[in-house]
């Protein structure tokens, strides 16, 4: 189990920083920074800039994403914001609006 879980029904307004895996299934508004993986669950609504080792998005995210490893937008996921990552995938059925910077 992930170190930090923001369950369905929970809302956080503010900044979160962590050194462990963060799973967001609820709502978040602010900023999320983790040195480990971050995943945004399918029912969650996030308005935040997200930084993580890797970021996986299945819910709705508005904000910029930064991940040294990879960013994945899964089917049904929605991202409005810029992505800065070494690898980036957008699954079939996902939606994305923003810029991509892969530091080539």
């Amino acid at each position, binding site marked *: 189990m992930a170190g930090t879980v923001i*369950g*369905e029904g929970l809302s956080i307004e503010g900044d*979160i920083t962590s050194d462990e895996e963060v799973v967001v299934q609820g709502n978040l508004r602010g900023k999320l920074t983790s040195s480990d993986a971050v995943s945004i669950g399918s029912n969650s609504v996030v308005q935040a800039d997200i930084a993580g080792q890797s970021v996986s998005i299945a819910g709705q995210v508005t904000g910029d994403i930064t991940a040294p490893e990879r960013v994945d937008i899964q089917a049904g996921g929605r991202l409005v914001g810029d992505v800065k990552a070494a690898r980036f995938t957008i699954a079939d059925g996902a939606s994305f609006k923003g810029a991509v910077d892969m530091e080539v």
Partner: protein
Amino acid sequence: MCWMPRKLEFCPAKAILTPPAPPTGSSPVPLLNPVPAAHSPRFRCPEHSPPPTPHRCADLSRVSSAKGPSPAALERLPSAPPRMPRPSSDVSVLGPSTRVTGRVSGDGALRVEGNVRGDIQVSGDAEIAAGASVEGNVSAASLDIGGTLLGDVASRGPVAIRSGAVVRGDLRGSEISIEPGSRVSVRLATEFELDLGPVGPGAKRR
């Protein structure tokens, strides 16, 4: 199960009249004192009239459902699994290295193992684990404090302050327990009822 042979044994005699009572009670009792029911023998005898047999069946089924727990439990079983995943996603955990600056609110339970600076308001149980710290007001169904809390508490249920906890603020809860070994500087606003006999309507405020 034990009814059938018994009834059959009793039937040639006159004791068959028993069945009306059994559905509620345990079988031996009505069988042993058939006398009061003796007024309606024709009605009950399984050998003389067909109705009794369905009766018996009904009785058996009633008895089995009256002993309820097992069938009821069986009925609950299928609905239990869907419940299982819910709590896991309803329980939020802020891990030991997680720092939150801001407001945490919503449904479900919350376990803080890290650091929260801001108010917490959850509908479920809240726990501030040992080593965790919260600076802000906490409102929850119940609260378990093992770490540090600087702020007011409004709990609908019990508030437990564990050994090693550091708490400062106003505490409001249905009951409050403070373990030895905790450092506490609080104002208690718990509303417990002392058994002093009849007390005014204000006794139960919340």
